[in-house]
């Protein structure tokens, strides 16, 4: 049973560029949440997707957008990258339909913006 997978593992971009990060949830999970973790900090919630819709959103600007596909996988898009967007981006999955509250995290994508 594969856990949560994320791609790519590392990414280097320059200011102003756009980036797309990908996440496949744990088998049987239907809900995907994205988090940003700056160095030395705890993760901060970006948004959550369920049934292909954004259900909740944290305090992140509209430059951060996402999508969930019919197979429950998800993408996080960040436009007009800033230096401050450098962080570890974590994806977590759970299952609302099965009543599983525990969120399982992927290994993350480390983004460096130069």
């Amino acid at each position, binding site marked *: 049973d594969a856990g*949560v997978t994320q791609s790519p593992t590392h990414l280097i971009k320059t200011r102003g560029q756009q980036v797309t990060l990908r996440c496949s949830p744990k088998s049987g999970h239907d*809900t995907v*949440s994205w*988090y940003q973790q700056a*160095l030395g*900090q*705890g*993760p*901060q*919630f970006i948004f*959550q997707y*369920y049934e292909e819709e954004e259900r*909740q959103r*944290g*305090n992140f600007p509209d430059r951060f957008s996402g999508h969930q596909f019919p197979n429950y996988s998800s993408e996080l898009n960040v436009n007009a990258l800033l230096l401050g967007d450098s962080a*570890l981006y*974590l994806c*977590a999955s*759970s299952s*609302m339909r099965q009543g599983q*509250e*525990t*969120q*399982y*995290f*992927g*290994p*993350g994508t*480390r983004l460096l913006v130069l």
Partner: protein
Amino acid sequence: SQQGEEDPQALSIQEGENATMNCSYKTSINNLQWYRQNSGRGLVHLILIRSNEREKHSGRLRVTLDTSKKSSSLLITASRAADTASYFCATDARSYGKLTFGQGTILTVHP
């Protein structure tokens, strides 16, 4: 913004000793979850405790929750060098909702 405050920020102990980490939060919750993170990689789920529970055990882990004080503690008994990691508490104000993390406790266990 971070809801939780973990205490201490760093903890250094010898193998075989117990490690206790505390977490305080500000708003009412549905559940509280503890996670471990090794070297800036993904978070590993340790234990979930619901707001109507007071204590849970899992192997060498014991978690308590005091909703009147809005606090939780994680006890790791008989620690091992492999327990060296950052530990985070995360609160969920509603089921399947967003997790709000604290700053974490860095635990170092010396062989």
